[in-house]
């Protein structure tokens, strides 16, 4: 089953929704593809208490002519102008003239003793699970790591009845405060701040603090926290711990987009270095929802040829770019976090590779070959960011499939551009074999 679109948008978070809606409003044939059961990405994940802005955009999306491909995961770009997606055993090729990548970001996980225990999750991870129906009312939760996600998650969980025992931000107070002020300087954020305050009565906020150990036998029972040389245990049922966000660069990299300083390089129209490929939102710089919405709209309009309308938004975007840098500075990781893992602490969860085994290797490639770190189904998405921070390795090289896919999907035939004699010879041989199979 194939489909042809003028504009294909990958990722139905804020940036993708804004891009799709804007391009469709300009009269183009647009498709929005996303691997989750429902749109919203991570920050607007369905389940409860979606902000008013999210509901407005969902309504626009529902009212638009955008073709919705929900539950489809892009795993390959077999030829120019085609993305290949898989869903529940089915595989399809999506043909496009212009592509807008809004693949978002994922959490950065840093290993520490006990981090592999059940009920230790990412901050966004636990939030997603709760939105997906995990009961949290009455449960004791520690939220830890770094970044604005922590407060948002803590507040949401508190609204759902969780007992937030502590929120532990690794940044020291002097770095956290200016950032918090920046958050509060935006009117929408101020309101959120008040809501946070109300929801989190009784929760303790610690800065320059992080978990050094998760304790429990078959699952989490308590967390050992450290702050300025002091350590203490907090009894809890869940630890929601994530160290800010890293961009999802696999699809942009597969397509050949230039990556600069760890993010997809784009111009003021959100154009990447590859012709007809745009990128908006977190992959171009971690900047939050409002920036993502602006960039999505710019990309959608620019891809649709509406450059004048895009220009107005581009000016607003430029004013907001300072937030990206402020956020980056605020979430800078304390070097002490490199010392949390002991030799026995696992870094690669797919293949159970320890910190001690990795310490002996010289590069990411060397580690992959000799320890199997990064060779499991997560393809290094969980352990790679940790390895970059812990060892200073560059985690690179992208090959299809960028997500695990069925053998039948990766073996899907490709329209040959040029048919070399040997290949067409094979093609006829395989057809014979195929016919032979049918008669068996």
């Amino acid at each position, binding site marked *: 089953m194939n489909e042809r679109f003028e504009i294909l948008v990958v990722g139905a978070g804020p940036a993708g929704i804004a891009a799709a809606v804007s391009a469709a409003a300009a009269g183009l044939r647009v498709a929005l593809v996303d691997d989750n059961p429902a749109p919203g990405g991570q920050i607007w994940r369905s389940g409860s208490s979606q902000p008013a802005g999210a509901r407005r955009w969902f309504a626009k999306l529902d009212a638009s002519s955008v073709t919705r491909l929900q539950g489809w995961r892009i795993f390959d770009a077999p030829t120019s102008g085609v993305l290949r997606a898989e869903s529940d055993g089915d595989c399809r090729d999506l043909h496009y003239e212009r592509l807008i990548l809004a693949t978002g970001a994922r959490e950065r996980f840093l290993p520490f003793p006990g981090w592999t225990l059940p009920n230790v999750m990412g901050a966004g991870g636990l939030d997603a699970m709760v939105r997906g129906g995990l009961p949290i009312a009455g449960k004791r939760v520690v939220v830890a790591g770094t970044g604005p996600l922590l407060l948002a998650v803590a507040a949401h969980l508190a609204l759902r009845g969780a007992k937030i025992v502590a929120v532990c931000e690794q940044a020291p107070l002097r770095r956290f405060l200016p950032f918090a002020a920046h958050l509060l300087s935006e009117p929408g954020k101020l309101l959120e701040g008040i809501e946070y305050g109300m929801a989190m009565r009784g929760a303790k906020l610690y800065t320059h603090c992080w978990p050094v150990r998760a304790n429990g036998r078959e699952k989490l029972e308590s967390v050992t926290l450290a702050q300025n040389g002091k350590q203490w245990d907090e009894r809890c049922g869940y630890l929601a711990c994530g160290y800010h966000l890293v961009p999802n660069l696999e699809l942009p990299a597969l397509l050949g987009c230039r990556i600069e300083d760890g993010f997809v390089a784009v111009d003021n129209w959100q154009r990447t270095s590859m012709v007809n490929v745009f990128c908006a939102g977190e992959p171009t710089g971690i900047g939050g929802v409002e920036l993502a919405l602006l960039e999505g709209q710019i990309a959608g309009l620019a891809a649709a040829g509406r450059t004048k309308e895009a220009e107005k938004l581009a000016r607003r975007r430029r004013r907001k770019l300072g937030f990206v840098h402020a956020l980056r500075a605020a979430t800078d990781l304390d070097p002490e976090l490199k010392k949390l893992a002991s030799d026995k602490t696992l870094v690669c969860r797919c293949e159970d590779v320890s910190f001690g085994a990795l310490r002996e290797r010289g590069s990411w490639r060397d580690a992959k070959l000799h320890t199997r770190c990064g060779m499991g189904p997560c393809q290094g998405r969980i352990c790679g960011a940790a390895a970059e921070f812990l060892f200073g390795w560059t985690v690179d090289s992208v090959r299809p499939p960028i997500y695990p*896919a069925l053998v039948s999907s990766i073996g899907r035939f490709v329209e040959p551009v040029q048919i070399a004699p040997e290949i067409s010879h094979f093609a006829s041989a395989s057809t014979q074999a195929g016919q032979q199979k049918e008669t068996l």
Partner: protein
Amino acid sequence: MRDTWDVVIAGAGIVGAACALECVSRGLRTAVVEGRGIGGGATAAGMGHIVVMDDSPAQMALTRYSQTLWRELAASLPANVEYESCGTLWVASDEEEMEEVRRKSAVYSEAGIPTEILDSQMLAEAEPQLRKPLAGALLVPWDAVLYPPCAAGYLMAEALRLGARLYAPRSVLSARKGNAVLDDGTELHAAHIVNAAGVDSTRLLPELPIRKRKGHLAITDRCKGFVRHQLVELGYLKSAHSLTSDSVAFNVQPRRTGQLLIGSSRQYNDEEPGVDHAMLAAMIERAQQYLPEIGALSTIRVWTGFRAATPDKLPLIGPWPEDETLLLATGHEGLGITTSLGTARVLIDHLLGRETEIPIGPYLPDLPARFARVEANA
């Protein structure tokens, strides 16, 4: 800076590492130069099979000899080398291929390799996932699989433990008349220099008739028990045999992790490391013809590699006629893992003036005569 050695080996892939261990075990002062990482070239990309092949008597001799050496070493190999004596099933899809099975069985018996002929029913019991009916198969129980980067790592670690020295990451820029010059200016003076650089061998010796033969592989997530033996179609020999055309041949391998390794493809004239989707599709389709349910397995990774191929499908082992200080141990195509130990033993026996346990003649780089014969027969 000048260092003096008995042997300097260019390349720490499986062949170079095997040579290093052989040299140092025989008391030779040995240095190894590696630019990319131990076991990082074709060694890292390949299937890791130890398989006896009878495309020619010389190939049979070397693979059989080398398999014996691997079997002797097996007990010493650490767990991360994942050595598994799973055996190979050469699968016959029709009566013509069963004739080939019977012929092969006789040849292997002659060489002292135990085999068993499986009929259609026995094959179905041995490997329930294979499509039915197939004509049967030849079981070669002494064949094995292992994880090549860690095997090269083990051989190198043993060599270092016994006193070999590793220069890494460094590459050899030139190797002539007992003098190897590295990319940082270091000069290594050696009685002999071994070119074990695989597809990079032509950088040191452009005259070598070695071509890159691209291959694709895919590995699945854990599916323990899906297949129990290495499975190869008899058409594999035709695919490996052909010197010019692109081809695929069914070849899958169970790993100790429970993952399934899926191959194989061969292409000349493509030096791009990127995945060739048409070849990949062809390879997968071929696999589906033998294992109808394989499509439902989850693939974690797909990658490519380059085999160092010679015109007569035999490696180059021995002194380079124009400069006898230069020794070759390269051009192993798809049999590098299998024949690494045999290559090292034969090469060093010959170097030390000892009688080799198999005749070295067919592998000597006796150019241009050796390949002129091939061209004449082509």
